[in-house]
């Protein structure tokens, strides 16, 4: 032994001292469910595609778009018409303002159309034939997903053009038809057969021709209300009005138009009336603004375009050129009650926007099928009481939006696939929600939301040009990067950096990290300092 003076032992490293034995709790990486994902009726993995979009033009946008397409085949449409439940749920709203998820989605959808991105069909053909009744969002979504699962799909629709309410309801100033056509065309080009002007009458008979049927015939019948009317009164319903405009045969409305109802359809009818030349478009609604079913943005945009509102009012009688309006008052339960007070409103026509009923005739008389709430009864996997016949979208009870319809299409496709293969659709267990309180917001930059440009007012009342503009590459990137990545690691290196015991192993780009439990003392600093709340402490097993 040749050691220096007074040295008796070889130098050793403290690595021999496995400090992991001190631990009573251990940090564990988790993936939590971001509130945006949780809220999306189409089941999009929003946090994931925003993360991909953060990489920007170098492949990031395309990867993000493909991630959306895994769930939703109509991003450019959704980026315009969705009512954005994701943004309502977004955690960032508690910090400054919600992430502009919808505007990034629109940017990605438009980018895909511009670049001609397509989705390949690589499943082996199953040899099964599926019929989809109705070429609205629900039918299109089902057809898209079924095709990707290897089934041969035919869509039959009563109309002369595809799209359902996206075309014959939602006006062009909110959804330009070029965008709608491009996204529908992309689905059809995957090998879907579309038969237009072919109304389906007998659902049950179809099972002789097809292995399974998905019925998504929507809700098109404008609801009527009994209103005493004189002979010269001009009364029509909102759905027919919007349909007529789309067919280039707008009905004559006159100069002063009253719209009866307080939903989004009422707003669209009033805004359309303005564009058709009405100098006055008045919405008559029984309750107050805060009770209106129409979304805030839609009301605001309508007001911006000179639409006026009569709250707490019902139409008691319609005559040529004038309406008799009764004032209402809300009772303690919030229901409107008549007051016996009347006023007059000059109006050349009255448009009823009181909601739509589903035309259930396709399924009436089919054995096993039952109806409720004005819709078809379906099981959680969207099968009707008749084996092999599934239904979704506006014709089943529930919320009626394009997004819900798309989600139903996806779900039905999976259920039909499982049913055809004799298996059951697999349900992945849901992660726990990622609450705002678990974020360490210190680390996020202050970054206000990007405001989408809007068309100037003059052009909004004279043309059907799109009102709301989109983001450009720079603003889309900025907006995507506002995402806090709730509950999911985004590789900021904080855990790796803040561990006083060097017990976090960085695995490299895309690989995230690992805890070195031989040395981790369980202080929990990585958990506290993780911005996204993607690490939790769990009690150590004893």
């Amino acid at each position, binding site marked *: 032994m040749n050691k220096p003076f007074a040295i008796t032992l070889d*130098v050793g*490293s*403290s690595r021999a001292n496995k400090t992991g034995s001190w631990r009573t709790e251990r940090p564990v990486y988790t993936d939590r469910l971001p509130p945006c994902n949780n809220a999306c009726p189409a089941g999009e993995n929003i946090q994931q595609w925003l993360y991909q979009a953060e990489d920007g033009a170098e492949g990031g946008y395309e990867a993000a778009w493909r991630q959306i397409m895994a769930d939703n085949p109509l991003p450019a449409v959704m980026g315009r018409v969705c009512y954005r439940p994701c943004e309502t749920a977004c955690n960032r709203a508690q910090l400054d303002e919600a992430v502009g998820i919808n505007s990034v989605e629109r940017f990605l959808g438009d980018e895909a159309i511009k670049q001609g991105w397509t989705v390949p069909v690589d499943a082996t053909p199953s040899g099964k034939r599926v019929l989809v009744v109705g070429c609205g969002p629900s039918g299109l979504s089902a057809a898209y997903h079924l095709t990707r699962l290897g089934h041969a799909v035919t869509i039959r629709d009563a109309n002369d053009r595809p799209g359902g309410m996206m075309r014959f309801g939602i006006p062009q100033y909110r959804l330009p038809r070029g965008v709608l056509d491009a996204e529908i065309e992309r689905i059809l080009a995957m090998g879907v057969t579309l038969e237009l002007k072919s109304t389906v009458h007998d659902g049950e008979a179809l099972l002789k021709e097809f292995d399974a049927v998905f019925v998504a015939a929507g809700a098109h019948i404008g609801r009527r209300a009994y209103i005493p009317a004189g002979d010269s009164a001009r009364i029509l319903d909102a759905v027919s009005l919007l349909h007529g405009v789309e067919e280039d045969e707008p009905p004559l409305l006159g100069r002063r138009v009253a719209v009866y109802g307080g939903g989004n359809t009422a707003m669209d009818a009033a805004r359309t009336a303005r564009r058709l030349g009405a100098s006055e478009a008045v919405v008559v609604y029984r309750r107050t603004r805060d009770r209106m079913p129409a979304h805030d943005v839609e009301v605001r945009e309508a007001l911006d375009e000179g639409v006026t509102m009569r709250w707490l009012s019902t139409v008691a009688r319609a005559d040529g050129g004038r309406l008799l309006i009764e004032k209402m008052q809300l009772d303690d339960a919030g229901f409107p009650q008549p007051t016996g007070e009347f006023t007059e409103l000059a109006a050349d026509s009255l448009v009823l926007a009181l909601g739509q009923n589903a035309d259930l005739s396709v399924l009436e008389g089919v054995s096993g099928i039952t109806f409720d709430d004005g819709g078809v009864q379906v099981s959680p996997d969207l099968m009707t009481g008749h084996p092999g016949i599934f239904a979704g979208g506006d014709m089943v009870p529930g919320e009626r939006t394009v997004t819900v319809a798309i989600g139903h299409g996806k779900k039905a496709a999976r259920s039909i696939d499982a049913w055809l293969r004799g298996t059951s659709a697999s349900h992945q267990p849901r992660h726990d929600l990622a609450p705002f309180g678990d974020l360490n917001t210190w680390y996020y930059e202050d970054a206000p939301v990007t405001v989408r440009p809007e068309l100037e007012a003059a052009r909004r009342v004279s043309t059907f040009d799109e009102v709301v503009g989109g983001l450009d590459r720079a603003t889309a990137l900025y907006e995507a990067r506002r995402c806090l990545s709730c509950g999911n690691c985004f590789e900021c290196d*904080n855990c790796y950096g803040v561990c006083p015991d060097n017990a976090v192993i*960085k695995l490299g780009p895309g690989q995230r990290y690992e805890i070195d439990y031989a040395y981790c003392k369980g202080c929990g600093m990585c958990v506290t300092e993780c911005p996204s709340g993607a690490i939790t402490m769990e009690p150590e097993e004893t």
Partner: protein
Amino acid sequence: MPYQHVTFHQTGSLAVGGRLLTDDQRSVQSGRRRSNSLTLGHRACQGCGEALGARYALDAVQRATGGQTIAVNATGCLEVFSTPFPETSWQLPWLHSLFGNAPAVASGVAAALKAKGRTDIRVVGQGGDGGTVDIGFACLSGMFERNDDVLYICYDNEAYMNTGVQRSGATPPAARTATTEAVGPEPGNRFGQGKNVPLIAMAHEIPYVATATVADLRDLEAKAERAMEFRGARYLHVLVPCPLGWGSAPKDTIEVARLATQSGVFPVFEAEDGEVVGVSPIRHRVGVRDYLRTQRRYAHLFQPDERTDIIDRIQRGADRNIKRFGLLPAGVQEESAS
């Protein structure tokens, strides 16, 4: 200037790393090949701020010197938890002599290197607040006065932790330690005593003096690297919360340091040749209560009755720091002064 944060990504450069940053925007600590001057298996308590601060600072110095650094350590936790004979956690040449002489030993090492013509090898002296502001202070002041080519780093945990939390010249007013108990009309450490060594170092007009905390890694790294651009005596004073001595949760070490800066209790600044040249502005201002509440050493200010008189006095001290160093840019509002 203190580190200017990059502000264009979701976390910009507030976090340790980030996949969207370019290589030159990454911190030393984010690198998979950082030198880990203090390696695995050391015996510091859970959540020890001193262990973290030492790795942050020395890894940055090692990067700045290309791995050509010798460290001289005073007695204290940092020495005891890293080197129980014959083990060591240090992955750089490292010497320990006594509690009170680290600055003098470091001066000696620098003189020896100079004599050997090896001024490419740089010297860091380091120790706790006790070893620096109290017992080692004469050696430190001499080192400053001679302008010896040493960077001295004080890891300030505001008491003698290694021997059981006794008061030091860096212990703040009202804090309870083993020797300043929470009894009597003015419980805890007295007001108006103690030393502000960063300001004393500046009075020596040495080339570089800076304060930092474990809550702002980028700033700490930038200062360690900046210090190595100078020759002569340099001083870096790093606030390192001690969960054991402060009675704070081990998981909150960085958060506690952050609150110290955001309340104005601990001003973060930088000085060259005796003049302040930059400060780290407060980003989200908090009242001192938010800081004090995180630590059991201040528990007697909140129970059985809240000692508003004492808390207000501490607040006035923080306000004075804010004013004196200009820590509050226009527009930063108090978030909670509850």
